[in-house]
């Protein structure tokens, strides 16, 4: 979970870093009237995405008119698709030098890695590629809770070597590294980054920007931290971008779901194309099944097949959750056909088929839209699942007439997908003919 800059700064401050004085984080322009501003002031759009500065989301304002104008503009702005709902006003600081400092996770070994550079304020990955000598990097192999003094010292010495002006503030720099590291460990972050860490003319060391990405898996035990920044510890904040209605619905029910087509609510379908909803099993096959549908579409159906969603229906979902997964895709206006795969490892074929049949019966009886379902089930509890499916088809054939489930691995899934798509096109053609007549 990403934190907003002003939240991250408050956390850093608690761990001993100096931050610019925050005047307010406002959500409406009217709030400006109640503030007593001292100029110059920094006006910063609070969005959880990078590239803010270039997009005009950071402005230095020297009077109230300028401030008002920029705040107004920013509230109307979308930065890489993210609307600006909050603006931070903070005291501007004078800049003598800019330093880069971060504590993150090494993607190769998963150890903690500390990076600092006397060349701050710019894209650090670019610096790392072009001038690796400008970067100090240290991998912490033992996951210590508090950073040992000698490592903080080593980092500070590196910075002093790069810029002799830092000699007088060496202790401040090693303290900053230590604070950042300790904050990283204590809030259980994935990323803690300050870029730039500013050295002012009077030799103060101030975090002018701040980035914290928390580890979602540890949020449950970070309740005090989350409460301190007004986040309900039980519901993680959805970041990145705005959710579609279906993403929001899935999020509430509690399974990972993404729409692959933009604006699915008011999206116009291409009549020639087949839109495939996916209930694929676990996350890995969730990703792969999208590729499979595209690949099969390209090879055998002239590229006319569009997968509409990602879903992770693995991990042993309950009956109700399985039913909700199918309801969601049958309520989705884009869906022409649903392709599903249940390869029961931890999850049970039996619960899966019961949930699926429950959703079909519910929809049939409440006269909701029915979508053909094609798929296969293999693995845990297959025998019980088959028995249930056969019984259900005998008892209530009508709602299940368009349910086509291959039992066992008599066909590989790629072939089931191909059959499903083929069937989907046939049904679609019939529907179009019906409409024409």
């Amino acid at each position, binding site marked *: 979970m990403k934190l907003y800059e002003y939240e991250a700064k408050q956390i850093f401050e608690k761990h001993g870093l100096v931050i610019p004085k925050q005047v307010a984080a406002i959500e409406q322009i009217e709030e400006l009237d109640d503030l007593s501003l001292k100029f110059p002031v920094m006006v910063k759009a609070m969005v959880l995405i*990078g590239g803010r500065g270039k997009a005009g989301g950071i402005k230095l304002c020297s009077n109230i008119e300028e401030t008002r104008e920029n705040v107004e503009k920013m509230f109307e702005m979308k930065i890489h698709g993210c609307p600006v709902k909050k603006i931070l006003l903070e005291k501007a600081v004078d800049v003598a030098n800019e330093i880069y400092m971060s504590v993150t*996770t090494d*993607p190769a070994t*998963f*150890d*903690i890695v500390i990076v600092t550079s006397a060349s701050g304020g710019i894209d650090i*990955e670019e610096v790392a590629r072009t001038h690796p000598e400008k970067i100090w990097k240290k991998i912490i*192999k*033992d*996951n210590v809770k508090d950073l040992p003094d000698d490592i903080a010292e080593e980092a500070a010495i590196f910075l002093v070597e790069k810029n002799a002006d830092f000699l007088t503030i060496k202790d401040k720099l090693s303290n900053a590294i230590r604070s950042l590291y300790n904050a990283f460990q204590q809030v*259980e972050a994935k990323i803690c980054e300050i870029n730039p860490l500013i050295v002012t003319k009077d030799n103060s060391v101030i975090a002018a920007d701040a980035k914290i990405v928390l*580890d*979602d*898996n*540890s949020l*449950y*035990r970070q309740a005090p931290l989350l409460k301190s920044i007004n986040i309900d510890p039980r519901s993680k904040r959805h970041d*990145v971008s705005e959710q579609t209605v279906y993403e929001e619905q899935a999020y509430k029910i509690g399974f*990972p779901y*993404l729409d*692959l087509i933009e604006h699915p609510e008011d999206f116009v379908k291409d009549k020639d194309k087949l839109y495939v909803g996916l209930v*694929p*099993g*676990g*996350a*890995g*096959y*969730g*990703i*792969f099944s*999208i*590729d*499979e549908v*595209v*690949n099969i579409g390209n090879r055998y159906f002239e590229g006319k097949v569009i997968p509409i969603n*990602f879903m*992770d229906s*693995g*991990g*042993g979902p309950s009956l109700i959750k399985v039913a909700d997964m199918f309801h969601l895709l049958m309520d989705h206006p884009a869906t022409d056909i649903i392709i599903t795969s249940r*390869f*029961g*490892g*931890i999850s049970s074929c039996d619960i899966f088929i019961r949930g699926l049949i429950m959703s079909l019966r519910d929809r049939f009886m409440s006269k909701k839209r029915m979508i053909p379902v094609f798929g296969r089930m*293999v*693995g*845990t*509890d*297959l*025998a*019980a699942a*088959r*028995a249930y499916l056969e019984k259900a088809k005998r008892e209530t054939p009508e709602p299940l007439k368009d349910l086509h489930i291959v*039992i*066992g*691995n*008599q066909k*590989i*899934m*790629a072939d089931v997908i191909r059959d499903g798509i083929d069937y989907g096109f046939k049904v679609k053609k019939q529907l179009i003919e019906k409409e024409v007549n």
Partner: protein
Amino acid sequence: MSTEKISVDQGLLYYLIKQVRPDLAEKISKAETIETMIVGLGRQGTRHAQLMMEYGTNVTCGVAPGRGGTKVHETIPIYETAAEAVENHPNIAVASIWKHYSTAKDSTIEVIKAGIPIVVLISEFIPLRDVRDILVEARKHKTILFGGNTPGIIFPPESIKVGMLPDIFQAQQVDDIVGPKGVTILSRSGAILYHLSDALASAGISQNGVLGVGGDGAIGSRFIDLVSLVMNFEHTDLVVIAGEIGGMQEEILAQDMISHPEKYTKPLVAMISGANAPEGKTMGHAGAVIAPGQRYGTYNSKREILEKAEVTVVNHQKDLIDVVKSKLNKTYFEIEDYYKKMKEKWNAKPPEPTWGTLVTNVMPNNLLIRGYPLQEVIANKGLLETSHLLVTGEFPNLEKIEELEKIAKEAAKEKFSERLDISPNSDVSKIIGTCLLLDSHISEFMKKSTDESAIIAFSLGRALRYLAIIFDNLEVLNQISIDNISFADMIYLGLVGEEKQEKQKTRLLEAIITACVDHGVTPPSAQATLILASTRTSFEVALSAGIQAITDVHGGAGQKAAEFFLSVVEKAKENNIDLEEATFRIMKEIIKTGKRIEGLGHRIHTRDPRRDVLWNLSEKAGYAKECVTVSKLVSDVFFRVRGMNLPINVDGVIGAIIADMDINPKLAKAVFVFGRIAGLGAHYYEEVTTQSPMRRLAFDKAVYKGPSIREIK
């Protein structure tokens, strides 16, 4: 050699163990089995332990804090800690961890520290900081760590799986003999593993090992740690990795292949998912997210560098099949056979849920107590020895017998604090059940001792005291010194009131009681005790419930049977007719009134295994008189009356002997209740130590899992 599987030291799992723990590998090679353990026995851990065993995995023990000393799936011991488990089972080489993410770290570190070389971490959503702590420890101990968020590992040629993978994988098979060769698959995702194996099997390509490395962002052993390792396994012909967007595992593997091509001795095929994934969105797996701006983690970044390392990259099941087929240019088994085997799975009938008991095996005309035929036990062993056998599985040694004797005798001497108002017509079950509820001595004793056999011996002693109250023999019981009397004599004293009996007489009464100790989990008394045990009531409450289920229709027929036999003998004397004729006349009368003949018929046995041994003992003791004679002909007479075969049951035999011993017929029910305390006690302890609380109890679904038939030495 078995054609079902290869010997473990030919397989990939053994090879992996040998790389990190050569000493342990040597021991495994000798023992010819790889021992595994389960850490975390919640719903999933327990269920998959069962599925693993069904597949062929040797699940040696489990670890669950707070449940040490109990068992799972009736026979698998549970320990408090991993260290304790390893101490008791030093050959354990693989552990699977099924804990919740909030407790996974401590358990995993404990397992690693215990020295187990292969750890399969099923748990997902483990906090990153915890994962780093786990990794620090794993590196220190050179542990091969699969996961977190792994579906597990499976080795089809050895028939070993650790984790929750479905049973769809296929080993090499030539002329019905399983072989160790094939491809090895490593995957970040569970379902992909299955789909890959499935696809390869459909083309006749076997898997000798399928390894889930885990879907989380930070995991234990990575592709770079494992790929060259498994390539060096002689029976691996090709390696498939299934990667996906996010992270840089595939990239660092490719980089290593470029820098150290000599380490990679076999062909590698990479199936990478996420060619059509949107940027910046996490796709289920915490690790599967394309971070904007990064130069790694995308489908293209992975594909490019893998291809630079001369790895074939595919993104479609059919392509995978084609590429692997062309690289190997052979098949490892008959595809037809594979589909035949799979067809059996998809056509299989849903299995009935069963559970196990190790106490008594009830078969028509045979009763095995922990494997020993009950008639042998009755003939050769005393009540306390039998009750010890019931609860512990073995007979006690001499020292233990003495200890149990002393406990039981002392228990019988301790005063009962309540004053009971017992009318001569009170029901024995009701009184003993009530006494158990009111008596605080048993719970006091349990504060001093946790020895289950001792607790049951103590309860038998207490029950003897209640019986002495009922049969008005308390005074003589109080007077006797326990130093001068055996428990068997004391029973005779408490029940009959006579001291200094001939050995054979006391022995006969003890044998009758021993004959009643148990009849498995289905009699109503056992069911009542088990239901209460499943809710974890205290021992004496569950015992009381079981005893109160003993009525005229269950276990209480002996008294009525005794009365019947006595009436036959009386009639014969009165009318001066023979016993058979007297039996015939009385039986006809009884049947005319619509009543049943007590002591006849059994729902399982046509010849009750307890019958002959009791008849023989009664003869030896000189108590095979008229009633026993009647009991031997009653079944034939019944046929003469009704034209139906109805065998005499144990109640009938006991009733006849009691009647011939000229003691109170009410004792026939009392001995049944008394003896059954031993069996009910054993069932109580089996339930609380091997089953989860408040489980769904399906009595008719119990399966006997104890020892087969054995002889008393």
